[in-house]
């Protein structure tokens, strides 16, 4: 009798915890959806309704006209920009995931001379503000005849992928139990095998994280395309849609429609990518 009551109490407590949890999650969703919701609501309003109503009010008569205008504006060719952005972001992401994982492997799993100080050098490349290296970097790419091509925005990714991503992957690689690579070593595996057969397959979550971050970063990059791409045909979404956000002449209705169109692919990428965030566990659990 009392055992049953206890079980009942636990179940009640459990479900009470669960309800609190779901309420917290729902509240979070509400709060965090604000910017996207507001942009969406604004993107469905006519200019005059935008000017006279609160930003987050739902439009009286939702209209897709702004989307039509953004997609058909001949002076800002959306599909062209979209394709350019996809190319740059994909290449940047591939390059980063490949090269950063190699470098991170060395820092995490190899025991070479001068490793810790070299790592300090790696971190220090994040510490100097980019503003003061912008001009010399530009001159460098100019001398290579890379200005007005996508090369300055994609090639560097294949060379290390940035200290941030290397550091992040190194932290994850260091969490992979030593026993695993030692076992592989005993079986005669070299570093390349350990990297490609042990560490990479076990790091699904870390690689997905870096990949998603990198894709978003490239997708949203503004300064790079702005400086290096002159040709209007080569622009990316972020620089192209800035046309609607010019100082003193903001066109909020088009700007918001554009920003929703730019954000949707990122939401899809994140949603797909986050499945892999979970993948890590089942594997490490094998130990």
């Amino acid at each position: 009798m009392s055992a049953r009551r206890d079980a009942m109490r636990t179940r009640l407590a459990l479900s009470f915890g669960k309800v609190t949890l779901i309420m917290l999650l729902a509240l979070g969703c509400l709060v965090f959806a604000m910017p996207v919701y507001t942009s969406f609501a604004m993107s469905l309003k006519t200019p005059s309704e935008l000017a006279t109503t609160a930003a987050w009010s739902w439009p009286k008569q939702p209209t897709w006209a702004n989307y039509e205008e953004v997609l058909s504006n001949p002076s800002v060719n959306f599909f062209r920009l979209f394709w350019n952005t996809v190319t740059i972001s994909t290449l940047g992401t591939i390059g980063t995931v490949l090269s950063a994982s190699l470098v991170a492997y060395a820092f995490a799993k190899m025991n070479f001379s001068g490793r810790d100080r070299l790592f300090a050098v790696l971190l220090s490349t994040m510490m100097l503000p980019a503003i003061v290296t912008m001009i010399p970097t530009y001159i460098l790419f100019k001398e290579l005849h890379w200005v007005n091509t996508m090369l300055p925005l994609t090639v560097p990714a294949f060379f290390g992928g940035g200290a941030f991503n290397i550091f992040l992957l190194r932290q994850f690689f260091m969490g992979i139990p030593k026993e695993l690579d030692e076992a592989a070593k005993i079986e005669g595996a070299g570093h390349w095998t350990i990297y490609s057969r042990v560490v990479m397959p076990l790091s699904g979550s870390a690689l997905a994280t870096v990949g998603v971050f990198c894709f978003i970063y490239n997708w949203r990059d503004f300064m790079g395309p702005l400086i290096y791409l002159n040709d209007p045909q080569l622009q990316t979404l972020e620089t192209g849609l800035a046309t609607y956000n010019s100082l003193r002449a903001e066109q909020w209705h088009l700007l918001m429609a554009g920003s929703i169109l730019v954000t949707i692919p990122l939401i899809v990428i994140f949603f797909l990518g986050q499945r892999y965030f979970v993948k890590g566990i089942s594997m490490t659990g094998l130990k």
Partner: protein
Amino acid sequence: MRRFVLLLTTLALVAGMAMLPTSARAAVELRLVVWDGDESLRVLQQVTRDFERAHPGIKVRLENVDYRYFFQRLLTQIAGNSAPDVAMLDPQNMQMFAKRGTLLPLDPLIAETPDFRLEEYYEPIVSVHRWEGTLYVLPRDIAPIGLIYYNKRLFREAGLAEPDGSWTWDFEPRPELGSRCFTHVMSRLTRRDAGGKVRQWGFAPSWTGAFTDTVVFSQGARYVDDPEAFDRMNFTDPRVVRAFDFVASLANEKKWMPSQSELTSVVQSTAVDLFISQRVAMYQCGIWDVPKIRKALQPGSPDFFEWDITLAPGYKDPVTGTVSRAAPTGGSGYGVLASTRYPKEAWLLTQWMAGEPGMRAMAKAGIAQPAIKRLAQGEDWIPGPNTPLEQRYPANRIVTDVAAQQVVFPPTADYWMEVSGLVFSKTEPIYLGTATAEEALTEGQRIASTRLETILKEEALPPFDWRIGGVAGFALLAATIAWVYGPELRKKRSSAQRLENRLSLLFLSPWILGTLFFAVGPMIFSLLMSFSKWDIIQAADYRGLGNYNEALFQDPRFWTTVKVTGVYTLVSVPLGMVFALALALLLNTKVRGMPIYRTFFYLPALASAVASALIWRKIFQPEGGLLNAALFGSDGRGDLFGVASWLAPGGELPNWLGDERLALPSLIIMSLWGVGGSMVILLAGLQGIPDYYYEAATLDGAGIWSKFRVVTLPLVSPSLFFTLITGVIGSLQVFTQAFVMTQGGPNDSTRFYMLHLYDQSFGSLRMGYASALAWLLFVAVFVATRLQWRLNKYVYYEGAA
């Protein structure tokens, strides 16, 4: 796996080749850079196409860059020797290019063009584009801010005659003058509800500062002695002081005009929206708001009301009785870059864009008032019988012709922006009612004058010696390598260790090559420049330790920005980590639909920065803002947990971004919103913890808290450590929030180090000094990281090598 890698690399290479430039070049291709928004851009594209048709053999590539980034990009391209051929410029920025020989003098070109008539242009906008007597920019439009837009219906309802432009303002309303006294009209058009709250303001400026300028200028006062090259400022002139006090009192005591914070907190732009929604009866601006109002107020729509424009009021001298009018203005034009390979063609294009074809097109679209007088009086600009209905408003456009002759341009001296910025950061408290104009302007003028002296002091500096610089650079690189490998040389290495070393180089090679190729050169370059005086355009001079000395001991803003950035980092990083970990734990629970929740929680990091900035301004808005509504209730009288009365003992609603005590905390609150990145990293870390650790702990009888302490914390510590290190590095370099939200104000309370650095680099063309600031920051970040690295020994790495 290997095949996969191979495939990806090949793909990448192929795609890379495809992107190499292949386009064939036309005979002459001119690059034209402008900063117009979408609407003007469409017009300009048409105009350039017409130009190409009229001049076969010349192709024009039109590039559009927003004003906020325009000069940074142009300067970078000039430094990289790939400047455009023709660039849009304005009086405020013309001098810095003209002075340094980057622009072609236009007078010789004009002399060679017999049918070109410069005397047809409005005189003020031509003369302001001269430097030392030479014309460098051909004006395209003139944009006096001296126009008042007014709502005819509200004038009628208040029983006031419509203004004919002959009105004057005065420090006190003069009812006896009726609608000829601007101050009186302003008070009459203000309506309050029963509780005394303002329902409708009489007047709103687009920028409070522009109205103050109008008041100052129409009294005959000016801020500086010589606009082209001043060495004295007149901010303590009694007329200037009176003007600031007057404008502040209109908003704070009289409440006939929305205050600075009420204006800046309204988001979808400013006064024009208050005007469209009939919350102000009249407002001051330039002509460029017309398309927006036309679009919002179409005849026949329910929101429509009759409106028009008129001249801003003048000032009647109480002694002499003479009326003087003057208003601040903007304006722009096109300049030919001296580096162009096709000066003749570039001049043809300039004449076309800033001549009749360009101006007529802009005038027809109602976008810009032509700089050629004849066109500004013609039917393209002034409505006539043939004007289509939707272009009839405003009917009284002829006043723009009068306004264009009473303009006062901001000083063109290229140090005006920096020096006046020091004064204007002190004037914000006047508008907020927390300082009197007398004390704020005296203080501002004192700081600015000291700075002006430093700027104007001509230092005799030797040119920068690049041979010594190059040697020093290589020495530095060698020293770094020695620091890394030096200690290893003495150690004895086994053959296995040697093999490991060689193999590691293979793994590290992408990064090592990339760093040597792309990063080392620019870093050393900036370090060398930190010992120089370099204006980006001309060759650098050697300044020794002068920049560092200036930063640490002379720069009035240096230590302020250090303090602001330090406080921000110390508070926002730990807070952000706790918040991110809490969210990650929440998202690591097992609830159905988790992928959806995770995506929602990450939305702020995915949303566009523009949208987020907009939302946050709405949240922090004093009246009708979400935060105040939560704390004080919608009636403004609530008191959530006593926070409200603690925040605002006087009963006034807190003005989050506009109050110098609250602005930085507001930005910290905002930074919590951006923890999505850390949250995902921590979540990935949490996901890596095997379930059986928790099961084992449960068997040992561990509670929730000790499971968290014994299992979760150690295993997530590598991720936590990462977010800490990168969080500190990132927040010491924080820039965007302040750049977008507060521009460093009020009273420098959010002036981050990077904001100052940015202003110095591309704003004041002091790249050498900015580099010194950057390297001081580098040292600070390096030391901070070094100190945090001591925590590394508490980090639990399961697989440490």
